[in-house]
């Protein structure tokens, strides 16, 4: 038990600092992924001239491994675009890229599932296209895709462990720092794995409960 106290409990401030960074980078990446996914999806559906570009981007983001994207954004983007300027930014951008590709497809499926007649009813009541989208289509799509959103967030949390590779000081980074300091990986790595498993489990359980609640509240069948 001595090791647990020395290597895990006494290091709790480091681990907690790391966990805060993990939470930050995941939330920022998630918000960016939702925004990016929505834009990609809307361009693909409604902006004719850019449709092929959107499809190419979506497929590229989906089919490229997250680790490769991370290194690509980190090493190549600053030279190409002069941005991102920090490892932290490179980390959430890469996480967001991958998820935005998946979310774009999820949103598209949701939008296409809203019956056409509802849109026509809105238009014939004199609502503008953007208004119909914002008031009639989007709320239903968000309800429908709620479970996929939660799932995508768990994917982001799991992938976020990789940002430690580009020295973002997240939970995985701190944990490996402790390993390198004390040269005794058993307790600290086991604790780290347990923390991640519990966090991901809690997120998906809470998210599922929330998604079901929303769906029941608005009269849609739970999935």
């Amino acid at each position: 038990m001595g090791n647990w106290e020395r290597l895990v409990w006494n290091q709790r401030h480091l681990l907690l600092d790391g966990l805060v960074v993990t939470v930050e980078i995941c939330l920022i990446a998630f918000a960016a992924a939702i925004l990016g996914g929505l834009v990609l999806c809307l361009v693909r559906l409604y902006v004719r001239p850019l449709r092929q570009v959107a499809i190419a981007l979506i497929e590229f983001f989906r089919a490229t491994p997250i680790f490769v994207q991370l290194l690509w954004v980190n090493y190549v983007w600053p030279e190409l675009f002069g941005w991102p300027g920090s490892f932290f930014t490179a980390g959430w951008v890469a996480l967001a890229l991958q998820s935005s590709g998946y979310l774009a497809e999820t949103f598209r499926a949701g939008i296409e599932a809203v019956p056409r007649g509802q849109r026509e009813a809105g238009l014939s009541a004199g609502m503008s296209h953007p208004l119909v989208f914002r008031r009639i289509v989007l709320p239903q799509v968000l309800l429908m895709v709620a479970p996929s959103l939660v799932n995508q967030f768990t994917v982001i949390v799991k992938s976020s462990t990789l940002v430690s590779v580009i020295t973002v000081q997240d939970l995985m980074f701190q944990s490996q720092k402790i390993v390198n300091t004390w040269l005794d990986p058993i307790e600290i790595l086991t604790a780290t794995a347990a923390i991640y498993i519990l966090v991901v489990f809690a997120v998906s359980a809470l998210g599922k409960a929330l998604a079901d609640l929303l769906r029941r509240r608005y009269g849609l069948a739970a999935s």
Partner: protein
Amino acid sequence: MSAALAEALNPAVFWEYRAILLKGLAFNFYVFACAAAAALILGLGAALLRVNRWRALRWAGTLHVEIFRNAPDYVMVVWIHFVLPLLLGLAIGRRLEFPPFLSAVIALGLVYSGYFAETFRAGIQSIPLGQIEAGRACGMPERLILWRVILPQVVRRMLPEAVNQFVSLFKATTIVSLIAVPDLMYQVSMVTQQEMRPLPLYTGAALTYFAIVFLAASLVRAAAERWRQKVYA
């Protein structure tokens, strides 16, 4: 910007090191094949536990699924590589070390067995009970019913989702470079250190993986769909 773009898309370095990079890519496929086999076998085992009639076994199956489905790939790879040999070593009283390749296969196999187990379970539970009873009424033992009646249908039903999971697994094989399995990403970073030209090398790696995953996934999806429709037309 345009100079940087030209440099990023310049295939010369990538071509120069093609032999070593291709060898690296082969390692991605080795890891993928071994981990996929392990994941399928372990996943089927866990799924059978989860539909078992004994509660304790169902519990064990659920625990397996929840642990590995919720564990990040990278954390599992690191844990299996650096912790598991130490624990086993303590148990048998001898120093133990895993070769990186073995650790990678065990870790990815375990993580993806969690996903496959859920897919298998959903497939198994979608088979109408009557078809199983028809087998029993013909005097078929349960094991024969499993192999001849249940699994062939489960495989067809789970195919689209399984393809997605195979794609994820292949993409996940890129992280094994972090425990020094000499895959494509590992070789790319080695060459980068030597040549100091990250732009074309990392861009080339990204495009290579994209091309493989995109083409393979499209082909497999099309083939799987045709195969399925042959029976359920």
